[in-house]
């Protein structure tokens, strides 16, 4: 199939970018969205033009690198699917597709569709860890965890740190990401020790990095490729209140 692309092109972080039009020809519906861009780039290189710069790594939906806003939706139109796992059969021959980088003050554009997402890493560095004794590997099942808690923790731990929640948020807030990390650790006994400090320093780091405040728009939940729910933001808020009044 043939497609009409409008892609954000920006040479440098300090340059003003613009949307540019490209044609993607002979695209197979079995290609992934990134493979489609590979084809377009090969054509551009053949013609001596600068290929479109975009981020990717695993191409199997687990690393969270493929940050693109496709037709106004981070990671594109398919629910709970990263851009790399989005297949071209989700589009029709002759479609016009707009491709833009994730937008937020905390995610400066480096080039074209590539953004700097290290602000999320610094939120993790602030408190997204647990303290553990070094030494031998502990025996399995020495710490018993109720099935329900394990499930909740796993649901939250599904977050791959892609930043689509920030991209979708009208306030550029990283609350869903932060909430997923805080909740994931707060429900497990290993994470309880630092739970109070963690929720405070991670939310402080979020604001310091230039992310906005959560306005309960819930756009993040719709965009999240891993189906992280805003119930975890309510959980983060509870954890914060608990920390303030000193409940362990």
């Amino acid at each position, binding site marked *: 199939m043939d497609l009409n692309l409008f892609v954000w092109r920006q040479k440098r972080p300090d340059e003003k970018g613009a949307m540019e039009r490209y044609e993607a020809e002979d695209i197979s519906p079995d290609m992934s969205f990134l493979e489609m861009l590979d084809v377009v780039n090969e054509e551009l290189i053949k013609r001596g033009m600068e290929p479109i710069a975009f981020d990717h790594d695993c191409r199997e939906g687990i690393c969270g690198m493929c940050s693109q806003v496709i037709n106004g939706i981070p990671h594109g139109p398919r629910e709970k699917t990263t851009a790399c796992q989005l297949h071209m059969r989700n589009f029709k021959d002759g479609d016009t597709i707009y491709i833009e980088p994730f937008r937020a003050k905390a995610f400066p554009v480096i080039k074209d569709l590539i953004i700097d997402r290290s602000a999320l890493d610094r939120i993790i560095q602030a408190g997204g860890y647990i303290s553990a004794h070094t030494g031998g590997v502990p025996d399995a099942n020495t710490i018993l965890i109720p099935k329900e808690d394990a499930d909740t923790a796993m649901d939250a731990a599904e977050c791959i740190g892609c930043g689509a929640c920030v991209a979708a948020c009208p306030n550029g807030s990283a609350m869903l990401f932060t909430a997923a990390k805080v909740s994931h650790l707060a429900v497990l006994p290993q994470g309880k020790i630092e739970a109070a400090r963690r929720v405070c320093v991670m939310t402080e780091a979020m604001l310091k990095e230039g992310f906005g405040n959560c306005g309960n728009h819930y756009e993040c939940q719709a965009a999240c490729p891993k189906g992280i729910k805003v119930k975890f933001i309510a959980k983060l808020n509870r954890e914060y209140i608990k920390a*303030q009044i000193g409940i362990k």
Partner: protein
Amino acid sequence: MRFFQNTVGRKIIVAATGQIMVVFVVLHLLGNPLNPYPVKLPDIGSLKQLLRVLLLLSFIFHAFLGVQVAIENRAAKPQTYVVRKKFHTNFAAENMLWTGILAAAFIIYHLLGASMPGAGSGYIGTVIYLVGLTALFLHLYHGIASFFQTVGCNNERTLPVIERIGKGMAVIMLVGYAYMMLLNWP
């Protein structure tokens, strides 16, 4: 002091002060002298002064922190998209700053107008009241349910129910006040 600078801390204050004012908006409708079916509110005597102070403080904190948060949020999203698709958010949620400013201006006008004869009954007064009520309605349309999420009283099951109740409450307030205004039509 860290509480007042924290993103969640401030939102909790904004949510709580907002909800205090919502309670007043409801009571004000029920016990309103224009209400054809008035509900007799208990006489609380000198407690009234205390509640006035509480409301005034709520108004000040809500407005100050609300505006501060809104300014930060705009700065955090300096550029939007050429094409953007929305899923859950709506006009009311996206315009909390503006509906808040309008509602605040309306409330101040209303308080001054309490001793100003004819306010709300003249042609211009009616328009101001309608605009003010609409702004307040939009503000509550997002705000009432938002409170529960912010203070952590929410989960996957309760969220849609709380949203529907919050929106319903906002509609009831709009219809209730507008109805009384019509009754008072000159």
